[in-house]
């Protein structure tokens, strides 16, 4: 099916956004920003899925995006609940301060 630009452009954009998310997870110490980086990565994967789905004229890719969104919603809710629980115990959202299991 007709794409506005060749699919490689979508894949490149998706790759750049995914790598941005990876960098965020690796470099940042704020748990909430790390969760946002994960959302960014999930979204870049979604973009690639939709681009392929349109190229092949098959809507299975869009269904998969739908499922990814459901998983992302569940993940965000659980993750933020964990952040709140940790904040209640440790008064911090920085992942390097959450070290009570280290020795």
């Amino acid at each position, binding site marked *: 099916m007709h794409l506005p630009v060749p699919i490689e452009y979508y894949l490149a954009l998706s790759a750049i956004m995914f790598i941005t998310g990876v960098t965020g997870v690796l470099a*940042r110490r704020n748990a909430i920003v790390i969760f946002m980086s994960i959302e960014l990565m999930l979204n870049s994967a979604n973009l690639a899925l939709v681009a392929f789905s349109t*190229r092949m004229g098959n809507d299975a890719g*869009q269904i998969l995006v739908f499922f990814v969104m459901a998983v992302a*919603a569940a993940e965000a*809710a*659980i993750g933020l609940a964990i952040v709140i*629980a940790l904040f209640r115990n440790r008064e911090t959202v920085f992942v390097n301060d959450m070290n009570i299991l280290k020795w």
Partner: protein
Amino acid sequence: MDFERIFFFATAGVAVVSGILTITRRNPVQSVLFLIVNFFCIALLYLGLHAQFLAIIQILVYAGAIMVLFLFVIMLLNLGDENTLEEKSGYRKYIAVVLAAVVLVQILTVVAGGVTGPTGTAAAGFGTVEALGETLFREYLLQFEATSVLLLAALVGVIVIAKKKVI
């Protein structure tokens, strides 16, 4: 350059810039706002890809629900104070950027080689609610039910984790 191309490059540019700003802002509230901009750009790209239903769901679920949740938690924990947000990451930051750049170059090299594989023409009504609903509830019904169980599990888990005292 026709309109579709200009539209793609403008949206993609804003998406990349807002994505980078999301992970570089120190204040999480600003990160949330840039991430919302990013999600809007992706919704616009979906529109260009004839996926109108996903575009509106993207706004409804991500911008309208998930990011509100993030903002809500940030406000609840009162994380807006700039002074307490200094991060001690040191050299790790540079290693992360270098590693990410290496992976990015690798992926882009593969992508630049060109995508081969089947292309197809879509049936009429591709990307509409009706078409997606047919596929979802005929071919992927089991997976759909599994997703609802997953959401239920998440719901119960959140309540248990966030409760002050587990009885």
